[in-house]
């Protein structure tokens, strides 16, 4: 089932075109990460999905209905990029309020407070919360009521490494329960294993939209192989493999996917001239750089 359908959507603020002919679709249980430089149009796209701002052209459907309609809003959970809850309220009061708006029981809201690790601070004023704790309140409210579509704008900003990990565990659980997750992030390393699909935006355009594997394939970025030899054998190994020696005993080689197995066989045949091998496929960061600079060269 399609949870979110975005078709040829554009948005202009006066002469400034901030989203330009973007098409995307998101199935139930799918996790899509939206990447892009500051001002690429990620937040604008999300605001259109939520019905907070009208489209200039194109069409968006949330679970088959118009964005911003009551039915759509009932099925959505949203974590804004920056939100300042009223400092005079306690975290618990604030979350219970949102629970009431979504007709969710207060006890369920308390469970979510536990889930995001705020139980110990729930009766304290939000004014006294740290940045990450505020972010968790936002996260907890986005999870209320089993949303069919979760729109999370930079959900991990302000979270410490362990919390980021826990956050993606929550996202996994959501996806398993059938929630489609659309999230944006600048923290690329977290995303690699925790999303199904990556969409890269630049200057309002969608440059890429595929799984990490397919992105790697179509980018054709080489795989980096690092061979560690000893001081004595390094030169010999470098000569035999044709790589570049980067320090006393390490040689790096770049190889395309097709040549990987052959190269590894060759290295293995060197026997005990080699002490260690490291194989690193192109990281998401490499891919991101590849796609965004390819765009700049094109224009």
């Amino acid at each position: 089932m399609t949870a979110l359908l975005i078709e040829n959507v554009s948005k202009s603020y006066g002469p400034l075109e901030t989203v330009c002919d973007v098409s995307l679709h998101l199935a139930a249980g799918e996790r899509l990460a939206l990447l892009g430089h500051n001002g690429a149009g990620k937040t604008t796209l999300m605001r259109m999905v939520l019905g907070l701002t009208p489209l200039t052209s194109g069409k968006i459907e949330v679970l088959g209905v118009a964005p911003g309609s009551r039915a759509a809003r009932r099925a959505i959970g949203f974590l804004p990029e920056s939100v300042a809850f009223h400092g005079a309220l306690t975290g618990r009061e604030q979350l219970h309020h949102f629970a009431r708006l979504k007709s969710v029981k207060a006890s369920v809201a308390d469970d979510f407070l536990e889930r995001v690790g705020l139980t110990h601070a729930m009766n304290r004023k939000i004014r006294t919360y740290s940045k990450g704790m505020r972010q968790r309140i936002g996260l907890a409210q986005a999870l209320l009521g089993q949303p069919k579509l979760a729109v999370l704008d930079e959900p991990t900003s302000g979270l410490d490494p362990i919390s980021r990990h826990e956050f993606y565990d929550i996202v996994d659980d959501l996806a398993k329960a059938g929630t489609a997750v659309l999230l944006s992030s600048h923290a690329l390393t977290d995303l690699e294993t925790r999303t199904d699909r990556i969409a890269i935006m630049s200057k309002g355009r969608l440059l890429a939209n595929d799984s990490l594997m397919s992105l790697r394939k179509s980018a054709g970025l080489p795989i980096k192989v690092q061979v560690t030899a000893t001081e004595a054998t390094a030169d010999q190994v470098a000569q035999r493999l044709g790589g570049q020696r980067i320090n006393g005993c390490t040689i790096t080689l770049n190889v395309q996917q097709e040549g990987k197995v052959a190269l590894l066989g060759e290295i293995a045949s060197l026997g005990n001239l080699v002490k260690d091998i490291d194989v690193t496929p192109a990281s998401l960061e490499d891919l991101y750089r590849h796609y965004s600079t390819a765009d700049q060269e094109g224009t």
Partner: protein
Amino acid sequence: MMSVFAIVRLELLIARRNMWVATSLILMGLFSSVLTLAGGAPTGTLGVDPLLVAVTSITTLSVYLVPLIGLLLSFDSIAGEAERGTLALSLTYPVSRGEILLGKFLAHLMVLGFAVAVGLALTAGLTIWKYGAADLSYLPLLKLFATSLALGAAFLGIGYCVSALVRQASTASGIVIIIWLVCVVLYDLGLLGALVADSGGYFTKTVFPWLLIANPADAFRLINMPAETVSTLASGLGAAGPTIGLASPLVSLLLWPVMALFLAWLAFRRVEP
């Protein structure tokens, strides 16, 4: 409907910890007590209902305080929430803008009603303590309470209007203070000036009464100051009281909240969070 209650509840929680609310409660209580204790003494012996005298002086006070409280409660409601980002978030919940506005209005009206009720209860209590409970007429007190609510509601609506029309809460607060000054101070001064210049001509007889009624603060004053005390207690402005009657100020006072809230809703609908 449940969402309206949820919003009322949240706004009441916020109001409980709001500095403005605490301040207005204290002001209301303090002034009511002082006016009741100080104002009653000389007339009490003349056979005039001491409660009526107190009500008259508290009306003068309420004309200033009630609009101020209404505006202070409302100016942040939309612009402030839009600035903080909570408005955008609220609007992704299944709740309409009308419900949000209604919820806030009901909560703020309760707060205002509470402040006025505290002041009037103090007045009634102190009067009874001073003069005994016999022969007191409570009707003016109830009338003052009801019209204070209407006056407060009008200025709440005006505050929401301003809050929906500007982008920043700080701008809204400035505009709201100007509106307060104009409505409760400058407007009357202007009318007074015009009256003096006109000296009983066409303006005084035909335009002036309507202008007086059109301002909710003046309509409020006209309703609560009985004709016989108006001429003695109020300045030249009250002189028009007898010719105006009660009906038209009452209509004005009831129309204002409805109109202001409707306009606020129209303005709020156009806000992009």
